[in-house]
């Protein structure tokens, strides 16, 4: 499901369609999160990604009204090469990692409470408070950046 929609995403001509396909992918991934009993992340994923970010994308695309098959073909070879390279990467990594020493281990499904908001919250504001603060700096800089770039002059 996720893979299929992912593929659709990168193949569909029309940017808008690929955005929509990407959203589908995100939903699928969130599904996996829920399956893995990580509700918090699932929600955040849907809200932040499928919601905010993708909408942002859509806006931009609309703004540039690219919502038609504008993209001219780039030369076949490079495209092919790209696809092949991606395939190779997949192949190689899978082949490399398939016989890892943890392959027989299981991922806990449907139980375990670490995915729940309160656990995460506790951890976040106890152990991970410093990175959290740091990420605020990140946001600050991103904001400044957006201003710098966006401001008309």
């Amino acid at each position: 499901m996720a893979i299929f929609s992912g593929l659709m995403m990168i193949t569909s001509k029309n940017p808008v369609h690929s955005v929509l396909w990407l959203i589908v992918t995100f939903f699928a991934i969130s599904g996996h999160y829920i399956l893995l009993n990580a509700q918090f992340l699932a929600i955040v994923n849907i809200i932040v990604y499928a919601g905010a970010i993708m909408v942002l994308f859509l806006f931009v695309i609309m703004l540039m009204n690219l919502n038609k098959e504008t993209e001219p073909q780039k030369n076949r070879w490079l495209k092919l090469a790209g696809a092949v390279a991606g395939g190779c990467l997949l192949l190689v990594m899978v082949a490399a990692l398939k016989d890892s020493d943890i392959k027989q281990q299981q991922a806990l499904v449907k139980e375990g409470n670490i995915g729940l908001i309160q656990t995460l919250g506790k951890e976040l504001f106890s152990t991970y408070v410093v990175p959290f603060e740091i990420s605020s700096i990140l946001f600050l800089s991103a904001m400044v950046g957006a201003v710098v770039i966006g401001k008309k002059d």
Partner: protein
Amino acid sequence: MPINYYIFLALALFSIGVAGVLTRRNAIIIFMCIELMLNAVNLLLVAFSKMHHLQMATTNAVAGTDGQLFVFFIMVVAAAEVSVGLAIIVMMYRNIHSVDVNFLNRLKH
């Protein structure tokens, strides 16, 4: 559920993202592919976090949370990146009225 499935799934998504970056010319879509790569990573991290939780739940009740928190941070960063990235793309578009990366060839050699 065997962890390998998740590994393969994540790798697949990741590679799809890479392939997308390689094949597409539209800057926005390339960017979206990168987002896809990030999500693949997220998925993998969550799977791992659950795996480690399963291993060490007895000793450490909160084992594995770090993985999920990392995912959270990744999302944060991604959001920030998106804001900046889109800003840059828009700026680009303002100037050359295209988001085709093939037009980015003033700088070479």
